[in-house]
């Protein structure tokens, strides 16, 4: 009962973040130079009247607060508006692409979480020793390299060099990427490496901290074998706090998907977002950002709930 109450309050708190977020997103697009009308009419050499008329049609001649309220009230009625560029409904665009991004994201998270935990525990239990140093150096390099550089390097090596995998992830619109598994390998690998590196470094610090704790010393002094000390006393105590870190790396995955999808021409929400920003397609940008933000809020809420349930001290305080 108290758990349900906690979940309800946390979810409510998450939802409450959406309206202020929508203001930020709207304001950010507002300050970008140029507007959708310019891009919608690009190449037509439009007259001043046509420009003005298009602006009027898109509602761009109204004041920003007016337009914001219009958009936001639409959101509340599950209407995200229409693309300013091609008139498609935003929900239709998102519907067409969200599945692809979910597949990409879920695959990355499924690979990243165990990888980050494994590397973090391995390095953390060997703090300062050679195994720790090697992994710390590798993860540091991967954290420092931007996603698009890593993606480009993988394309050069596996796409052009070894010719093992396709360099771009293009496939027929009506298909699921799962029908063409090869197109997923490089995007998934790029995102997994980047997200897992950052997360594993945090897990490592948590594990190393627990290794130095008094209760781990006592566990050893109780005569427990080292394996058991790590499995029963170190890992459970380090994993709890790591969950929030892992939820944070969902944010890395979402942010990274914008770049990775663009680099690989993968038809997901990320690449659509990048394109929409370039054309100042405000309705589409706002719609996609709200969806991504909701996903991130869900991830954090789930992690919070998991931490509260896995940590007796928090659970009994609920």
């Amino acid at each position, binding site marked *: 009962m108290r758990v349900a109450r906690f979940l309800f309050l946390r979810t409510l708190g998450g939802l409450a973040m959406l309206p202020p977020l929508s203001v930020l997103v709207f304001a950010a697009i507002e300050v970008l130079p140029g507007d959708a009308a310019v891009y919608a009419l690009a190449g037509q050499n439009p007259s001043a009247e046509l420009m003005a008329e298009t602006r009027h049609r898109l509602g761009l001649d109204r004041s920003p607060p007016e337009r914001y309220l219009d958009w936001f009230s639409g959101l509340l009625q599950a209407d995200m508006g229409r693309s300013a560029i091609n008139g498609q409904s935003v929900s239709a665009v998102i519907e067409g692409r969200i599945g692809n991004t979910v597949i990409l994201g879920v695959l990355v998270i499924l690979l990243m979480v165990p990888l980050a935990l494994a590397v973090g525990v391995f390095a953390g239990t060997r703090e300062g020793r050679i195994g720790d140093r090697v992994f710390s150096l590798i993860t540091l390099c991967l954290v420092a390299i931007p996603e698009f550089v890593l993606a480009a390097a993988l394309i050069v090596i596996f796409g052009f060099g070894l010719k093992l995998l396709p360099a771009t992830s293009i496939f027929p619109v009506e298909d699921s990427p799962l029908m063409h598994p090869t197109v997923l390998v490089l995007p998934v690998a790029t995102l997994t490496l980047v997200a897992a590196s950052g997360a594993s470094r945090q897990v490592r610090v948590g594990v190393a901290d627990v290794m130095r704790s008094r209760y781990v*010393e006592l566990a050893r002094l109780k005569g427990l074998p080292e394996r058991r000390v790590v499995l029963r006393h170190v890992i459970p105590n380090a994993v709890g706090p790591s969950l929030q870190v892992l939820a944070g790396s969902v944010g890395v995955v979402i942010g990274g998907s914008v770049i990775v999808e663009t680099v690989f021409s993968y038809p997901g929400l990320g690449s659509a977002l990048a394109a929409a920003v370039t054309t100042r397609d405000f309705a589409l940008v706002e719609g996609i950002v709200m969806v991504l933000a909701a996903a991130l809020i869900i991830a954090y809420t789930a992690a919070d709930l998991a931490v509260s349930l896995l940590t007796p001290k928090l659970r009994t305080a609920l």
Partner: protein
Amino acid sequence: MNPLVEVEGLTIEDHAGRTILHEVSFSVGAGEAVGVVGESGSGKTTTALTLLGWVRHGLRVVSGRVRVADAELTGRPEKEARAARGRLVAYVPQSPASALSPLMRVGDQITEILTGMTAAERAARVAETLDLVELPDDEDFRRKFPHQLSGGQQQRLCLALALANRPKVLVLDEPTTGLDVITQAAVLAHLDRIRRDLKVGVILVSHDLALVAAHTDRVVVMYQGRVVEAGFSRSLLARPSHEYTRGLVAAVVDHRALGGSPARAVISAAPDGPPAIGPVSLLAVKDLHASHRTKGRAIVAAEGISFEIRAGECLAIVGQSGSGKTTIARTVVGLHRADHGAVLLDGSPLPPSATARGRDELRRIQYIFQDPFASLNPRRTVGDSIRRPLRVLRGMPEREARAEVARLLERVRIRKDIAAAYPGELSGGECQRVAIARGLASSPDLLVCDEITSALDVSVQASVLELINELRRDLDLALLFISHDLGAVSVVADTIMVVERGRCREYGPAGEVLRTPQDPYTCRLVEAAPSLSEALVASTRPADGAGVAK
């Protein structure tokens, strides 16, 4: 027959080649208790841990050996040393709260270390062991997590973990620091019984001489990694021969030996009684009610507390942990908002919150915290920390403030070049002196001292108490002295208020309260507090002749 535990010529160095232990030797017989005393950094814990074949990271055994029940524990591979741990020799750590694995239930913590038994045998042993340390043996308790236990229960659980495999030797490292006196007395009485019944050898590491005198047969005094003196506990502590031990014994503050304690000679108040106490009340607290609210439940911290402190007077508030004494102090300085009641300074009421108080009101009452390391900003030099109240509360110009810092440091008897140091470079005693200097900087009328000696070594405690008395005499300071240590209180307090669960149990002149307590709770408190003088005169029962100190 060889003694149960034999430590011979043990020398340990750290990675930089500094000697941590130098030729340490002693022995312990079955059923015998040996105390290891010394200040922090003297090598007590390092010595204790070698009995488990354990050397902390960065240290290494250079020479010497440790034998327990004829098994060699030094110079053996970790795997073999581990076999002895928990089975032959068991360890009871300091601060049980941080030593118990937080995610493991009570029952699992014990079951975990029982090997080579059937499930039924394990269950029986868990029940037996919980019973042995007088913890409840029901399903409900076994399913609790460590954080749901009280401090005393946590310590008993640690003792249970150590006893689960029925070891021959028990190593206890400051097992009762952090427990209040009543709980401490119960845990120690218990330990004595277990030692008698199970015939285990006990090594009790402690800085508390009163406790060692009362609960051990022989004692080993360590100083800078060496054994400087060893012998039968009571005769040694009654007539210490080494200079260091003499100083240590002299530094003990003893509530039973008012006036006659050796410490009284070192820590003298004014030659004739306490400093002059003014006739008018400086601070008055009237009918104070305070509580802490968590998750809708209110925990009472003060219920109808009233007291008065006159200029130059020292009032000590004494009680167990959780009695509300710190909350009362925090209400006085405006860090905790009272539910009801008034705090009056010179007869005029103070605003409840420190932020609402005027500069002069803030200046006149200063607070010194329990943990000197935590109360000094680690990123600020000592000089900066002391200069701040000078500049803010007294509006002193920078140059003058610098000179004043030097004067204050001299006042608290530390080198004035320490002003350029950061708190991390100082010892606990030095840090606490700096905190006192900071408290004095605003030239307050009332100093609120919250357990200011409990984080310090015995010898350092004595010198800090001496400093406090000296300051009172010279500066005409009034003190609100919060403590659970009746020894410390007996040295500084003029008046004592005993609180239990937020209620005042007894309030009166220090001598009367300590010598002839009226309230049953005060009686228990005075009874339970360890007293060196009492331990020395009490039962000079003969020690087991199982081994002679080397």
